[in-house]
């Protein structure tokens, strides 16, 4: 559901960038915040609600960024690995099936 409204920011560190390059997906990165690399995975309303329900630490930043934040690194790594595996950012349904 890449047309969803609520981004999850997968910030691309060196390890993630190496994986993206190896998979030929380095172009998937956008540039944000004065030079950071990021992959935006978008959630629709239902996915956002489900994520906030199954990952209690997660928070929707309604005030400023309108993004879903504070998803633990382990879970974000899972989402990132699905992006690599599917070569797509449309991975949240698959991610949510793991709960």
């Amino acid at each position, binding site marked *: 559901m890449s047309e969803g409204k609520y981004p999850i*920011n997968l*910030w*691309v*560190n060196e390890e993630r960038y190496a994986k993206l390059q190896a998979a030929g997906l380095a172009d998937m990165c956008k*540039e944000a*915040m*004065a030079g950071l690399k990021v992959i935006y995975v978008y959630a629709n309303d239902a996915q956002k609600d489900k994520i906030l329900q199954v990952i209690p630490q997660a928070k929707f930043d309604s005030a400023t*960024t309108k993004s879903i934040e504070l998803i633990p*690194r382990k879970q974000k790594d899972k989402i990132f690995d699905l992006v690599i595996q599917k070569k797509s950012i449309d991975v949240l349904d698959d991610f949510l099936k793991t709960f």
Partner: protein
Amino acid sequence: MAAIGHGRKPIVERILEPAEAVKKIQGLPQVPIRSQIANEVIGISYGFFSPLEGFMNSADVDSVCKKMRLASGVVWSIPIVFDMSDAEIGKYGITPGKSVVLTYMGNPMALFEVEEIFTYDKKEMAQAIYGTTEDKHPGCARTYKYAEKFIGGKITLVNRPKINEPYGPYFITPLEMRKKFEERGWKRIVAHQTRNVPHTGHEWLMKGAWSQTYAELPIDKPYVGVLVNAIIGEKRKGDYIDEAIILTQDELRKSGYFGDHNHLTSLTFWDMRYAGPKEAVFHSILRTNLGLTHHMFGRDHAGVGTYYGAYDAHNLLATIQDELDITPVYSMNWLYCPHCGEVTSEGLCNHKSEWQKFSGTLIRSIVDDGVKPPRLIFRPEVFDLVMECAEKYGFGSPFVTDEYLEKRTPVFSIEPLKA
């Protein structure tokens, strides 16, 4: 000259020296208190909460809830109450007209001259202060946790708190604060309320507020300072640890983003109520007592969730501005504009479609993902210090964990009282 605080009342410290204190508390029943009450005892005793002299009686509570004023007519927005169960009242023999000793960490902290024991409808209190009775509002939840009775009466500190490292330099009382301002030659001082590690959005909020506060003053000398006043109170898992908050705020000065001539970091003990507009009024009172002339307020000041509108606090402050001796400075958000290549104000930049807004939460997610944020949005000295604090104080994490809550060094301790 007397230091004048909120309500144009002189700031009076309610503190006994040890020799007198030992005599005064001899033989009195000892009543242990929790951290919220200990924080408020400090607030009352040193004059942070002036003109309060103790925990509120029923007339004050009722007047604060219904009129946002103390019974004396002075503006006040949040009840400062001492709660206790009937069983404990019986156990400690608490009776109006008699005094007890409040103890914290097992040692005497304050003399409590009990004047009144009363009840108050907690839902009514929640609705009046928070504008809601929903228990998911953290202020309401705190109210509902109060025991069934409230006790009003005067407080006198009998044992000064020992402020533990690294917080020592940052606990500056209202009377001491005025001396600091005088030493620096500041004519105007603007408060920056915080509970966060600063990103450059915060830094520019302060710089913008400094500029607004400077206004028509001459520029031959530094006449305006920013006082960072960090609120230190109950921690929740996932918050930044206190050590990281206070030290990184000061790091902005130490690393030259500000200087001694325009920046000072301090702390106040207070458990946030997230009361939005009512908390904004309370913050105005607190900072008036600290001797400040101006107070910065952003959007949704001290709010939570979607309970308050972005400008509710500004609107409420406007209704009582004549009675507050502190001038509000309203601040718009700062954001990163890739077109400008800089952090800028949403009130200035018109590349709206390119704006990249950032928040503490977003920066936290960057750090969580193992990425060092760029210096334009998070100063490298601040980042390095956050990581250092994680190792030194946070048991490996800059954020509050169960281990931190269990093993951290308290911000202050009450030690055995010696004459």
